[in-house]
């Protein structure tokens, strides 16, 4: 399944790497529910979020600057940062 990382830039303890915002990848696996660090970092209770591993092609992230476009990066992203493509 194809997903896009939301291109949001909120302040706070965000564990969605900036270099992936707005980029499209493929879901590699769903890991389960985890506490949302954006809240727990400030001791705010909140619903758990699904954590998803997403696979990106280097060409999608770095464009023509990529060392080898077919190489890949896999990253854990909380599901509220992902939107369907």
């Amino acid at each position, binding site marked *: 399944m194809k997903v896009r990382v939301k291109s949001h830039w909120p302040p706070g303890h965000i*564990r*969605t*790497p900036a*270099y992936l915002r707005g980029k499209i990848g493929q879901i590699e696996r769903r*890991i389960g529910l*985890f506490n949302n*660090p954006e809240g727990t970092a400030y001791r705010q209770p909140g619903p758990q979020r699904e*954590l998803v*591993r997403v696979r990106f092609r280097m060409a999608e*992230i*770095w464009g023509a*600057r990529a*060392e*080898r476009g*077919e*190489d*890949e*990066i*896999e*990253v*854990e*992203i*909380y599901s509220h940062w992902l939107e369907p493509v």
Partner: protein
Amino acid sequence: MPHDHHDHSHEGLSPSGHPYRADNDTDLSYWQVMEIALRELLIKKGHLTAAQIHAQINAMDSRSPANGARVVARAWVDPEFKAALLDNAGEASRAMGFDIGPMHLIALENTDKVHNVVVCTLCSCYPRNLLGLPPDWYKSRAYRSRTVIEPRKVLSEFGLIIPEQMQVRVHDSTADMRYIVVPAQPEDSFGLSEGELAAWVTRDSMIGVSLPLAPQ
């Protein structure tokens, strides 16, 4: 003899020619004061004892890459264990007897088509509960930023050249999972026992910046 025939002054150096390390006589930082205050409160209120805290520090210091090496060596000789490891590396490590606490671990298998390498771009996430403390370079800004941009160049600086037809897969350890690379077993090591094989598995091969090496 590296310390013979100096033509400079030995003033300020130890008898073996090394500079003395400065005493840590500086004031405590804000966070050091916070840590001491919190620790003393926990002890005073009876939640923990000093001995328990020391035992935990000792347990963390005693974890080493040798633990991960034993896990990888077993995966090399035992296909059933390898399947369990790739399915749930945390449970498989616990089943071998390693106390890795609540850590969620994913094992990444290197094949003749894919080479895996682990980084944490946001901080320094590392499977400490299995492998112990990370190497200093793993926490450096250069390794953290460059590994996602130019992994092949970074790996070549570790002496590892990945053939063009092979896939490089970088794993950015950004959240709740921790990662261990299961390197491919070198052909030269086929037929060795699990105990002998563990000596081939280096820390760096489990991060993915080198390959297993014959013990010197």
